[in-house]
């Protein structure tokens, strides 16, 4: 065990004059209390502070409890304020009556029907919009001519807030399912287009060179090199589009709807049934959650070669 005196001049260290021989014997070093030793050598005891694994583990165990604390408090405050009559049910229904409303809606099948209609609209719009977005992104990404034709037009249209199109779509397509599906499709085109275009253009040039070295044809270059390596970016676009499709669904259904979740919520709103309105909001939120799960599953299935996905 060799200890060097920190007080010695820097030059002395190199010559080896300040070795343990000059200090206390090694027996002293082994036996002394750390605090005394540090004081006598004018050193700082770096091992004094230690990790407290017990406390951290305790915190980790209690984490879910801690995280649930504020939501639970809010829920209790909600229930208390509504049942005590502080907030009238026409302003905010109590959690209990929301649960009852949900039970009733499920029992008579109303919620399931509405959900089926709304999810069908969102999915149809999404499929159409994402399809157009991927196709346009590929055309613009793969061919210079395609970029000139497609890109500036779509970039221009992108600046239009899709909700502003609702009145126009009502004039064009009436008040049935069509204007809603078209609105959702339009809203979904842009995120998918932008990410597909960026994904195709972002494929590593060095990989393209590999393809050229091996003499791949243009078709095989696209199918084996460009498309698979653009896919992560395309999926990001689809993920965005899924979120936006729900947003567009809510917007479209609130303008006019005779069926679906939006109709359910709007009718309840007209009758000042805040319990049913809240049920609708919660169902929309659950749909969003479901959409996210679907995308994660898709990524896992389609991108097995990505290191980040393998690890997770």
């Amino acid at each position, binding site marked *: 065990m060799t200890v060097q005196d920190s007080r010695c001049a820097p030059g002395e260290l190199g010559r080896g004059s300040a070795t343990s021989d000059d200090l206390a014997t090694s027996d002293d070093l082994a036996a002394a209390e750390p605090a005394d030793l540090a004081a006598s050598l004018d050193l700082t005891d770096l091992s004094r502070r230690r990790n407290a694994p017990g406390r951290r583990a305790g915190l980790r165990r209690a984490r879910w409890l801690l995280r649930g604390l504020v939501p639970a408090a809010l829920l209790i405050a909600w229930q208390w304020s509504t049942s005590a009559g502080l907030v009238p049910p026409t302003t905010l229904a109590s959690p209990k009556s929301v649960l009852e409303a949900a039970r009733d809606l499920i029992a008579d099948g109303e919620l399931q029907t509405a959900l089926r209609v709304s999810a069908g609209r969102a999915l149809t719009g999404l499929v159409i919009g994402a399809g157009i977005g991927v196709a346009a992104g590929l055309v613009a990404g793969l061919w210079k001519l395609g970029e000139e034709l497609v890109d500036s037009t779509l970039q221009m249209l992108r600046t239009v807030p899709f909700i502003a199109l609702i009145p126009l779509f009502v004039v064009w397509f009436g008040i049935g399912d069509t204007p809603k599906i078209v609105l959702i499709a339009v809203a979904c085109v842009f995120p998918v287009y932008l990410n597909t275009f960026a994904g195709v253009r972002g494929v590593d040039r*060095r*990989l393209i*060179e*590999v*393809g*050229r*070295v*091996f*003499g*791949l044809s243009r078709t095989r270059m696209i199918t*084996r*090199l460009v498309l*698979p*390596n653009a*896919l992560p970016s395309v999926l990001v676009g689809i993920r965005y589009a899924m979120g936006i499709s729900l947003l567009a669904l809510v917007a479209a259904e609130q303008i006019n709807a005779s069926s679906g979740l939006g109709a359910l919520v709007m009718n309840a709103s007209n009758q000042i049934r805040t319990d049913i309105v809240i049920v609708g909001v919660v169902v929309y939120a659950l749909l969003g959650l479901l959409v996210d799960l679907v995308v994660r599953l898709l990524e896992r299935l389609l991108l*097995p*070669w*990505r*290191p980040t996905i*393998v690890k997770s």
Partner: protein
Amino acid sequence: MTTPAGTTPAGTTPAPAQPAVVMRDVGKAFAARRILDDFALTIARGEFVALLGRSGSGKTTLLRILAELDTVDEGTVLAPRNRSVVFQEPRLIPSERVWRNVLLGLPRRESTLARAQEALAEVNLADHARSWPHTLSGGEAQRVALVHRPDLLLLDEPFAALDALTRLRTQALVHELWHRHRPAVLLVTHDVDEALRLADRVVVLTDGKVGLDLRVDLARPREGTGSRFDDLRSQLLAELGVARPSSPA
């Protein structure tokens, strides 16, 4: 300065006196900078040529021209159709399993796992045939790049990004594969010792021309020591403009 086409590798079985690469009157410029100027180089079939040059001298451009990744402005370039390139950083297609990467250039009906495994076995990677590229280490990925059987093997500083031990092993593997299959090899490197240990001939690219063309008349396998080795190294370092050739960094 042109090397006669009828050269044979030193100390090995004579290769056919036929050239694998012929470059004549080649000119190449990037903007105002002339990278290659009336450049000429011939590589015989089965010959191992190392290309040295200061950084920015156009070594990599020369290799990329032979890989058909860059075009020349003027002159003639002849090379075999069957070429393979190993880059400094491994370039495997991340979305294809290792065995599909190995068979990338082949038509689909000739692409069988067994065929890829056979090729991979030669670089001790048969077990990794079904792995994804990102699971390989840098040295393993470079070995995958070496499984092809080209007539012209182009190596663009393939050992530069490897750790010292892996570099030695991979150099030995390159030498072994060359010895067995006899492709013409162009190795672009900045490592004088590496060039002298591996190559039949070391060419230094200076100001767009062949500044020095040295035949490495040393028996293989080479240890990288001895007075002849030191002498060759001194000549190369002098051409590369290193001030004190007797004590390389």
